[in-house]
Every structure is written in structure tokens, then in C-alpha cells.
């Protein structure tokens, strides 16, 4: 009856249990339960050695330690804010972390309510009525918005217009999503890092199904003509899709007030921090497109006692019911990160969220000013208000500046031969003085 010493540490069977169970099913041994033709049986080994928990932990920690320990002034779609301890503590409760998609809502009210509250947060931030429980990231949310444009009756055409400075990774994902429905992804010009309205007006036509604009844009510039972009889209019966994030939206013009039909973006700026690019996509749209929305939706209903209760709803849009006619193939999304974002937002409250957003403007503005005072640097490159990040011109080759900075313990983006991009948040604020001093050394 001793515990076994070999095999999976997460299978609880004692030798006696295994024997009794085999006996109950009438099998001589475990192998007899596998109905696999001889010809495709695997007789080899993976040659992966089992290790105990401490050894695996030590090995992986040592491996991770091979990455340089840099203070990252990095952004461009992946942002780190300070995440309060409460977020980790609550989200790590096993009832949240180890639960499944809420197919049995009666035992999953807690998570459903948290997701309903997450949806509500996004409704408040965007001014649009319908938020889903999450997409994989900002890029896939944009891809889903493009396919949505093909399901909306009021929209015709097969061209998707995006700003020419759209981040390359996002553009590549959009192209992949556009491939199936045969959409053409075209660009419109930008000026000073934001939309060139005249250029956009020239680029748009009646075949345009969607116009996409971001605020802040990839260079950290706050879009000043969001309403005008929306008007251009509207005049051509195109879907107007705005890209933003929950921190920025706490401060900036509400997308709904600028005429947005859909808001997408990166919501992991709350609750997650730097995570190797792992993110969480937000997707919010108008009520009239409700039945075309991709992904999970939590709605309020009642239970038999007459009390309000929550449940996944409108599932006939989804792949497990509608199969090839579903609005998307998405099944598992980033629900746990939506929970984390919701908790983070709740710890900030409305004041804290607006303060954080204002800090993103002040920090970027101040750091750009300080870098502009450094010999060999001019910042910001774009004559715009900035949020979190901005670009700077370097007299030295940008790659050399960045490389020298790494030796000083800092990372920045190299975005051109003589151009870098710098992102600053509350998380990196304490390192700003050291960063500026290092810049004085290397620029």
C-alpha cells in the first residue's frame, strides 16, 4: 500500500489501487487497455528524464537567468504597469485558476460574475454596449474585427484600411485573418505619428469595409482626429474600428463619442505586466452587432429562486453549436487574464485609473523633455501629445546606442537607423533618473 515512486506524481494510484481497478475491468495490465494497432505503436523513448520538483525548478530558473537582467523601457503594444499584490493573491485561488469555461453556470457564479464585471468595465471605458470575455491579444482581436466587417449587413466591400505605421506583428496577424475571407489589407498614410486625414480620404473608397485607427498609436502619439477618421469611415459605410487599451481609455476621448463601431486592443496592460508578449485582447462593439460578436459573452438571467444569476449566453454564435457557421473558431480565450485585469482596475478605482493614465502622459512628456536635453538625442520625434512612449532621434546609430544602453542595464526599441522608441510607466518610473544618466553616457 505504499505510495508509488515511479510514474506521474499527479496520479494518486497505489499499486493496490491499480491492481484492484485492473481486476474490476478485467484487464491483465494497463497496456491491455490500449487498442492501438501494432504497426503504429511507439516502442521508442522520448528520452526526457523525470526530475523532482526542486530540480526542475532550479534548472528552469537557471535557464531563465540567461536572459540579461535589464530595466525595460519597452512598449509598442506590450506594457507593464505595477500590479498590486491583491491581484496575484485573489486570482491564484484555485477556484478561479483551476476552473473550466462556465458550461455549468450554477457552480461557476463567481467567475461568471467577475467576467460580467470585466465586460462592464469595458462598456464604461468605451461607451459601447457589448464587450466579450476576451480574445487572445490585440492583434487577433483586430483580425476578428476585420472578419466581423464581412458579417455586418450595412457594410460592403473587401478592403481593410490600416495606418501605415501599424506594428508589423499586428499587421501580419491581420493578414492571416484576412486570408480566409479574401480581404485586402491596405494602408493609409500617417503624419506626425497619427492619421493623415487627407491621405486617408484619398485611400478610402466604396470597397472599403473597415477603417482602423489607434489611440495612442504605435509611436505613443495620441490621435487628435479620431472623430474625423470615424466620419470618413461612416461616409463610405465602412466599419470604424479603434485600437486602444483600458488605461488609455480612462483618460482619452471615449471611442463611442468618436463614432467607433468596434474597439479592440490590449487589455493586459492591466493585471499582467511584461509576460514575454502574452497578452489579452479586448473586443467591444455596438449592440446592433451583438449576434455577430466572436467569443464568449456573459449575461444576466434569473435562477429558479428568482435571484439574478449569470451565465454564458448567445452561444449559438459559437463554434461548439454553430460549427462552420460560427462567428469565429475561438474557444479557449484569456479569461483568467480578464479576471486579473478586472481586479487590477478595481484596486485602482476610477480615480486611480485616471491618475495612472495621466501619469502615462506626464511621464512620457517629462522623459522626452529630459532626453531632448541630452546631447545626441532629440525627442519626441512626433509633434503630438504622448502616452507612455515616444520616439527619439539619435545622432549615433540607434543600434549602437541601444547596445551600449544594455551594458548600462536598460532596454529600448530600435525602430530606425537613427531612431529609438522609449516607453515609461509607473513600473519603470523609479529607474528614470538612472536611465537618463545612462543615456548621457551612451548617446
Amino acid at each position: 500500500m505504499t505510495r508509488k515512486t515511479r510514474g506521474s506524481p499527479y496520479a494518486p494510484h497505489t499499486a493496490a489501487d491499480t491492481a484492484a481497478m485492473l481486476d474490476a475491468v478485467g484487464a491483465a495490465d494497463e497496456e491491455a487497455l490500449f487498442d492501438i494497432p501494432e504497426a503504429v505503436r511507439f516502442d521508442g523513448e522520448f528520452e526526457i528524464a523525470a526530475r523532482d520538483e526542486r530540480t526542475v525548478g532550479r534548472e528552469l530558473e537557471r535557464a531563465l537567468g540567461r536572459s540579461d537582467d535589464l530595466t525595460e523601457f519597452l512598449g509598442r503594444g506590450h506594457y507593464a504597469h505595477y500590479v498590486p499584490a491583491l491581484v496575484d493573491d485573489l486570482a491564484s485561488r484555485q477556484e478561479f485558476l483551476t476552473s473550466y469555461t462556465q458550461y455549468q453556470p450554477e457552480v461557476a457564479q463567481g467567475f461568471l460574475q467577475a467576467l460580467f464585471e470585466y465586460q462592464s468595465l469595458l462598456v464604461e471605458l468605451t461607451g459601447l454596449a457589448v464587450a466579450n470575455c476576451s480574445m487572445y491579444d490585440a492583434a487577433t482581436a483586430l483580425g476578428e474585427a476585420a472578419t466581423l466587417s464581412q458579417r455586418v449587413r450595412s457594410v460592403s466591400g473587401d478592403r481593410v484600411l490600416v495606418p501605415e505605421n501599424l506594428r508589423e506583428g499586428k499587421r501580419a496577424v491581420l493578414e492571416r485573418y484576412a486570408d480566409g475571407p479574401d480581404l485586402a489589407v491596405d494602408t493609409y498614410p500617417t503624419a506626425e505619428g497619427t492619421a493623415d486625414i487627407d491621405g486617408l480620404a484619398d485611400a478610402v473608397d466604396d470597397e472599403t469595409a473597415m477603417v482602423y485607427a489607434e489611440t495612442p498609436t504605435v509611436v505613443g502619439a495620441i490621435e487628435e482626429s479620431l472623430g474625423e477618421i470615424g466620419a470618413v469611415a461612416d461616409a463610405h459605410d465602412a466599419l470604424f474600428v479603434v485600437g486602444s487599451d483600458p488605461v488609455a481609455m480612462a483618460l482619452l476621448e471615449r471611442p463611442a463619442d468618436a463614432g467607433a463601431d468596434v474597439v479592440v486592443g490590449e487589455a493586459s496592460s492591466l493585471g499582467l505586466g511584461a509576460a514575454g508578449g502574452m497578452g489579452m485582447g479586448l473586443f467591444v462593439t455596438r449592440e446592433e452587432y451583438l449576434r455577430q460578436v466572436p467569443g464568449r459573452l456573459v449575461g444576466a438571467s434569473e435562477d429558479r429562486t428568482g435571484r439574478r444569476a449569470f451565465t454564458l449566453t448567445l452561444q449559438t454564435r459559437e463554434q461548439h453549436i454553430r460549427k462552420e457557421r460560427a462567428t469565429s473558431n475561438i474557444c479557449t480565450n484569456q479569461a483568467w487574464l480578464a479576471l486579473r485585469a478586472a481586479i487590477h482596475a478595481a484596486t485602482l478605482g476610477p480615480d486611480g485609473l485616471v491618475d495612472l493614465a495621466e501619469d502615462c502622459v506626464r511621464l512620457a512628456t517629462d522623459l522626452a523633455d529630459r532626453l531632448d536635453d541630452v546631447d545626441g538625442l532629440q525627442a519626441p520625434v512626433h509633434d503630438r501629445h504622448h502616452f507612455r512612449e515616444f520616439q527619439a532621434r539619435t545622432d549615433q546609430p540607434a543600434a549602437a546606442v541601444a547596445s551600449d544602453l544594455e551594458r548600462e542595464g536598460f532596454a529600448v526599441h530600435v525602430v530606425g537607423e537613427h531612431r529609438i522608441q522609449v516607453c515609461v510607466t509607473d513600473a519603470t518610473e523609479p529607474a528614470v533618473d538612472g536611465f537618463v544618466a545612462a543615456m548621457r553616457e551612451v548617446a
Partner: protein
Amino acid sequence: MEERDRYRGDAGADDAGVDGDAKEEKEETVGTTYDQARWTDDGAYEPLLAEKDQTEVSVGGDDSPLPDDLTRDSLELPALSEPELARHYARLSEMNYGVDSGPFPLGSCTMKYNPKFTEELAAHPAAAVHPDRPDESLQGLLRVAAELQDYLGRIGGMDAVTLQPPAGAAGEFTGIHIAKAYHEHNGDHRTEVVIPDSAHGTNFATAAMAGFDVVELPSAEDGRVDVEALEAAVGDDTAALMLTNPNTLGLFERDIEAIADIVHDAGGLLYYDGANLNALLGRARPGDMGFDVMHYNVHKTFATPHGGGGPGAGPVGVVDELAPFLPTPHVRETDGEAGYERYEPARSIGKVHGFEGNWLVLLKTCAYIARLGDEGLADASAKAVLNANYLAERIDLDVPYGPFHHEFVASAGDRDAADFAKRMLDYGVHPPTTKWPEIVDEALMTEPTEAESKDFLDDLAAAFNTVASEGDSALDAAPERTAARRIDQVEAAREPRLSWHALEEE
């Protein structure tokens, strides 16, 4: 002594001298029962954050760093203290059932135990990196990625693996686009993807999203692929066959070699849906069965927590011939010096995630595989299959198809499977997946996983059997012990209320 007896009240009814009502209840119940925490307040359960507080703050004005035309006017959200929030979410968590709460035998979902040490690793500061750094400064992340690619390649019998797809369905999307790009590269315009009727809904949706027509393949009488029907269905238009093996009935596709030949002879590719790979670890590999491209569900096979609906990860493995089509960037060892680099495969399909996928989930995957090794992985499958067989043996329901592996589909018979499931909730277990696959009437698709002990399987069997023996009224009234009672789905869909704003409008 007296003091101790008082606390033994419900454990030993005779000794403790409990009153008549309690004794009667005790006699009615069989095995484990479960009373989920239930916080109520007037007409609702735990009030919404917005019902606890709504604070409107004005935005902009003289102190704002931005001109008013660039800012919103106001923002209205709950403003609550940390203790209030801790209590709010703690109560919500109490009204949620997780894998550590009890058995969670959702078929095809593989809700197994999630080791805790992997969480600690994912929270390690050295893992919290931005991906836009030069390869030389990200050697830790790249090394772990390369190691995981290698592990997965060995486990699946695949030549190259991408870690970029952020979920299983995204893996399907990646794999089908790789197939599409491969055919296009060969100047071969193929328009159809063939999928058995018992497949996961994502397969159909994925093929459609990638621009293919779906050809649905009826199952043979034994629940497996109908080889003759397959022969008739494939042809010059076939880009790929998507197959889950063992299939959703838990049956191994015995004709897999013939199936592979038919598809390959027609010029198509064979796609493996990794949803049921937990059944085969160390015993059969998709690559050896003739599959050209596959995805791995790291939650289902490698125990990363599901998180109530993600994040997951859906790495994709391919044979050599398809490796040039993998998403960019891909990680490899550098020539010469010891190190790792990212590169763009020669004919890459581009990207399926804005960065490089769900890195922290992948890190947990790597840790799990390293912890188990060959022996542990093989044992996980053995126990998953043993558990399914043992459980099926213990329950009084018909299981029409076999021999099954890690999961089986029982029939609720003349009972409604959904009602059956609701009643199971009262017995301290999560019910199986219901009413799917449709090939079994009133299906209860059951996958206990390797993580359940014999005792818990006996509890689970007792729950099945008790419900099977109960009258319709008990099933109709269920669930009774969960936080919420039966929820009106029709009402939720008829008048969608999807935010607290929508509730306030009423």
C-alpha cells in the same frame, strides 16, 4: 469528551444523537454531497462591484496634462478599499468550482490536476520579459522555448514545432493555414477540408475561417471513420483531413494507416487534433501514424490550468516538408556557438499572435514535461485510460462504443442528459460534457483523467448511479446545493443584459 461529540454530529449520527430531521436527510443521501457556498443579498447573490459603489470622477480640466478635446468627460466605476475587494473576490471564488474542489470529468476537456510549482516558476521575475529585445539578451526565454519545441517534437513524433498559437483553436488555425500555404506553394488550389461528424466544433469553424469548404464525414457504425465514405469524400479538392485520435468517443482509429494513405494518395495532408493526446503518451505518436501537422493542447495534455477559459497554448508540430511554412519567428539553436536565435522560416505563413504566444503558459508546459519525463508521461496516459475504464465499469449507464481510452460516452437513456448533469452537481462532482457527440443519445461524455484516485472514482460512480436511480422530479429540481439554482438560459438570450449598465437601464 462532550465537546468533541458535539463536533462529531454529522460524522457519526448514532453516537452524536442528532435530531430526527438531520438523521432522515442523512439516510436519503448516498456518498458525497456538496453544499457550495452561497452568498445572497435580496434578489441577487453577491452584489456586483457597481452595486457596492459607483463613483463618478470628472476627467480633464485645469490639472489635466491634455487639452479637454482629447479627453473624456468623466469615468464612473466602483471605488472600493482593498479589504472590501478582497472579500468580494474571495466570496466569488467560493461560488466557483475548481479542479481542487472535486472531480471534474468533462469529456474532451481533460480537467486534471494542475501542479503548483509551475505557477511559482511562471511568476519568476526572470520570466517577466518583453519580447522585443535582441536575441542575445533573451537567451533564457529562447532556451526554454527551444527546449519545449524539442520536447513536443519528441512526444508528437514531429520534426519541427512552433509555440506561437495561443490556444488549441489557434493551433488548428495555424495548421490549416500551413496546409493551405503548402498547397499554394505547389501550385495546387485545393478548396475542401474533410472533417468527421464527431469532431470538435472548432475544426469546422477553423476550416471555414481559413476559407475552406467543409466536407462532413459520417461515422461508421462502430463510431470510427468510415473508410469507404472517406475514399468517396477525398479527391483533388481535398486540402486536409482533420482527425482526432482517439476520437471523441475515446476510440482509436484502427484504420489510421489506410486513412493516411487515402488522404495522401489524393494529395491531401493529415491534420491531428491534439485534444485527446493525453490518451496516447508514450504509446503512439501522431507523426508515426502518418499525420503531417498537429496541434498540442497544453492544458489538456500538460496540465496547465484552464483559468476558467484560458489562457491556453496550442503549439503546432509539422513534418520536415512543412517546416518552412511555420509562423515567424521560430526559435532554433545558433550554428557554432552555444545559443539560440529567432528567425523567419523561408515560406512562413506570417503570424497568428501579435508577439510569440502565451509565453507564461508555455513555461508551465515545459516544467510539467520535465517533471514527468518519459515514465511520468506514459503513466499519466495509463492511469487516464485505466480511470476511464474503471469508472465506466462502475456506472449503471449504457456505454455504447468501445474499447475506449481516456474517455467514454455514456447515454443518459430516456433521461435528459442536461438534467442528469444538473443533478450530479449536488453530489460534489462536476458533471460530464453533455449532449455531445451526437452519435450517442443523451450523451454524457466522461473523462475522469489520471488525477482521480480510486476513492474519488467511486464517489463519481456513486453520483452517476444515484442520479440514474432518482425520479424525474429530483432531476427537474436540480441543482439544489449549488450557489445558484437552475438558471434560465432562454431569458438570458432573449433579452441580453451584458453589463451592469444594461441592468441599470431596467
